[in-house]
């Protein structure tokens, strides 16, 4: 039977890019359907209105709402739609997806992350499982991402350094701010290992992309030079150059139609005139980011899948993951240091801090309790966005702050010192009460039920998050930072999401097999973060990229 294309990929972000790139390079005909517009380097400016204040890169929440359910203190669930609270999980609907706007703080999962229940035992009230693959099976693909997407960094010895096939990173670390060496010094004094943080950012021009220009506005912003390893700059542009790839922006897939054999027969999508189109392929790959991938499947019932595509075991949308953890900050006040050091600290935060500590990737602290999974501490600049920073001064302990008092507070914040932020990542424990379903009432502008995200969390997330953040705070204090605070964070970060269609060997409690092919739908692969049964205690993007390269090889084997 002839098809329009060999592979139809839905989405174009970190989960989609490697599949598109690999298959196009191997001569297969690939169609990419992306809901958002195709923005390129020339369109990306450092405009706080666009990235952050007016949501220029995410859909209108009036047209495309989300519904969130949060647990009430007294029990039960409070339901909020984006009409009520504007709390939504949109991260970037453009060609290349949210990988355009990531900071690119790249960490690999470690061998222990693939064996969490074998290593630590079950957690009561949680659905922890081992992965159906080992670290060793994914390692060659982590290595591939370093070379193809472009990861800069430097390998150092530390207690939890994971095994590597390449001795070091293909690109040297990006330029570092003087604060980095003071972190190194403080860590040495305390007796912990300071790691230069790997970044998905080119430190020198290569692969038709320019190097970083150190504007200081990286996370939340698109990259004007091409240095940031977005799926678009690193992979899709190269896929287009093969001539085997077609990307259709403004193409929103509304349904995956399936036949009586349970295979996908065609994809239905709408363009920006709201006209419907249909296309078919030998293989379909869904990579819309976890929440929307599960939602698309649930919105695609068929003759063999009455509860949604690939959902006969009611596993789609279940065991959704965010990132657990904590946060904190401290300030290096210029007046507290001699003028030479003050001048160093005051340097414009264009060069990065790029420091991490993973000494507590497993927390084995008798005073704290039995051995548990810990995680990663990242030290980064406070994001420089001026409106965000100044607006935080409006609220004080006794109400609003305004007038001369507000102006003094804002001025002191901007001029008296540099802030260092702690971002602590710990596992988001998979639980029954964290899942995606279809809202029974709310619909998007095309009349489709929207995602309802129940964000229940396990108290375990807070324990390790608190511990890690407080260790970060100790390091900041050792540096002479003032106003040091640290706390655990229970609320799900909207930009770190995975799970919902986890892979596994048992079709009764997983949606995908170990190749990320749907158990129930032979011509469907899911290559975004949906596949992850546990998150690990690192940001997800490197793992999503690596696994997508792995899945690309499986799809090629399938196509023959």
């Amino acid at each position: 039977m002839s098809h329009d294309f060999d592979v139809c990929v839905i989405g174009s972000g970190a989960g989609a890019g490697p599949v598109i790139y690999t298959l196009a390079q191997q001569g297969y005909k690939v169609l990419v359907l992306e809901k958002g517009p195709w923005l390129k380097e020339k369109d990306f400016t450092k405009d706080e209105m666009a990235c952050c204040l007016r949501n220029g890169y995410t859909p209108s929440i009036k047209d495309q709402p989300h519904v969130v359910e949060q647990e009430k203190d007294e029990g039960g669930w409070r339901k909020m739609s984006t009409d009520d609270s504007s709390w939504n999980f949109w991260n970037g609907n453009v060609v290349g997806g949210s990988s355009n706007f990531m900071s690119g703080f790249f960490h690999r999962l470690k061998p222990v992350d693939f064996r969490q229940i074998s290593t630590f035992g079950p957690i009561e009230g949680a659905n922890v499982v081992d992965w159906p693959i080992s670290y060793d099976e994914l390692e060659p693909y982590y290595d591939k991402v370093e070379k193809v997407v472009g990861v800069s960094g430097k390998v150092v010895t530390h207690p939890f350094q994971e095994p590597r096939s390449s001795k070091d990173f293909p690109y040297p670390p990006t330029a570092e701010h003087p604060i980095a060496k003071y972190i190194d010094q403080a860590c040495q004094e305390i007796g912990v290992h300071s790691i230069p943080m790997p970044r998905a950012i080119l430190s020198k021009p290569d692969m038709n992309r320019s190097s970083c220009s150190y504007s200081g506005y990286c996370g939340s912003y698109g990259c004007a030079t091409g240095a940031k390893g977005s799926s678009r700059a690193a992979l899709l542009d190269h896929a287009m150059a093969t001539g085997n790839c077609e990307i259709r922006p403004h193409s929103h897939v509304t349904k995956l139609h399936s036949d009586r054999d349970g295979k996908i027969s065609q994809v239905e999508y709408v363009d920006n005139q709201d006209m419907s189109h249909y296309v078919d392929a030998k293989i379909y790959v869904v990579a819309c980011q976890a929440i929307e991938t599960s939602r698309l499947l649930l919105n695609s019932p068929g003759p063999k899948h009455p509860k949604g595509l690939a959902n006969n075991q009611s596993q789609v949308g279940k065991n959704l993951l965010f990132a657990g953890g904590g946060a904190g900050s401290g300030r290096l006040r210029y007046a507290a240091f001699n003028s030479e050091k003050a001048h160093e600290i005051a340097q414009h935060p264009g060069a990065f801090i790029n420091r991490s500590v993973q000494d507590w990737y497993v927390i084995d602290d008798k005073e704290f309790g039995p051995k548990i999974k810990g995680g990663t501490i990242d030290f980064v600049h406070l994001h420089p966005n001026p409106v965000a920073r100044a607006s935080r001064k409006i609220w004080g302990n006794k109400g609003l702050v305004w007038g001369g008092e507000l102006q003094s507070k804002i001025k002191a914040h901007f001029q008296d010192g540099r802030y260092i932020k702690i971002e602590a990542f710990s596992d988001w424990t998979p639980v029954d009460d964290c899942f995606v379903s279809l809202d029974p009432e709310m619909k998007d502008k095309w009349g489709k039920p929207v995602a309802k995200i129940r964000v229940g969390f396990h108290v375990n997330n807070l324990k390790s998050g608190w511990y890690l953040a407080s260790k970060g705070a100790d390091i900041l204090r050792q540096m002479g930072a003032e106003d040091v605070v640290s706390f655990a964070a229970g609320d799900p970060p909207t930009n770190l999401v995975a799970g919902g269609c986890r892979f596994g060997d048992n079709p009764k409690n997983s949606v995908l097999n170990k190749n990320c092919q749907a158990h129930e739908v032979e011509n469907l692969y899911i290559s975004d973060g949906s596949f992850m049964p546990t998150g690990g205690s690192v940001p997800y993007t490197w793992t999503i990229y690596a696994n997508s390269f792995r899945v690309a090889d499986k799809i090629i084997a399938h196509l023959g």
Partner: protein
Amino acid sequence: MNRRKFLIQCSGTFLKASTINSLFFSGGILIANPISANKKQLSESFSEQTILFSRAQWQTLTAIQEHLFPAKNGAPGASQFNAKAWLYNFLTFPEINSEVVQIYRSQIDKVNLLAKQQFKQKFIQLDESQKEQILRSIEKNRQSQRWLGEILNNIIEALLTDPVYGANNDAIGWKWLGHSPGFPRPNTQQKYFLLK
């Protein structure tokens, strides 16, 4: 009319303070470009919906802005970085939210009512400490506190967003704080509502 086209036609004019003033003196009516608007659209724009505030209400509102963010100790005052036009933009773009405008009207009236009760004068006639007293007094009410917080947020936006949007005149806000913007900065073709 396609909303995007409407915005582009307005975006050059609606953030110039002088234009806004002339709109206010004519009752605050938003006038669409007569060349491309058809008769129906013209009559829509002259409807009740597009009249925001009376002249007296605008005067009170800008006095509140100036009190919340005065020209003092080197800091620029709200009127120096186009905070009034920015607030107008916020309330009317991409479309007027009549519920929100109604809240603003009733809060402004509440401020003047309290000023009359306590000091027998309009808010704009009070001295600094009297204005402070009135605003701190209404702040005790939660909705009024949220309203004042929103005005403050709006002022901060006018102070520190990219001057291409018509406020932060000549980067006066950035300069006051010694703040370095990122690069590249947006040009007039790259405003956020033109991206999609």
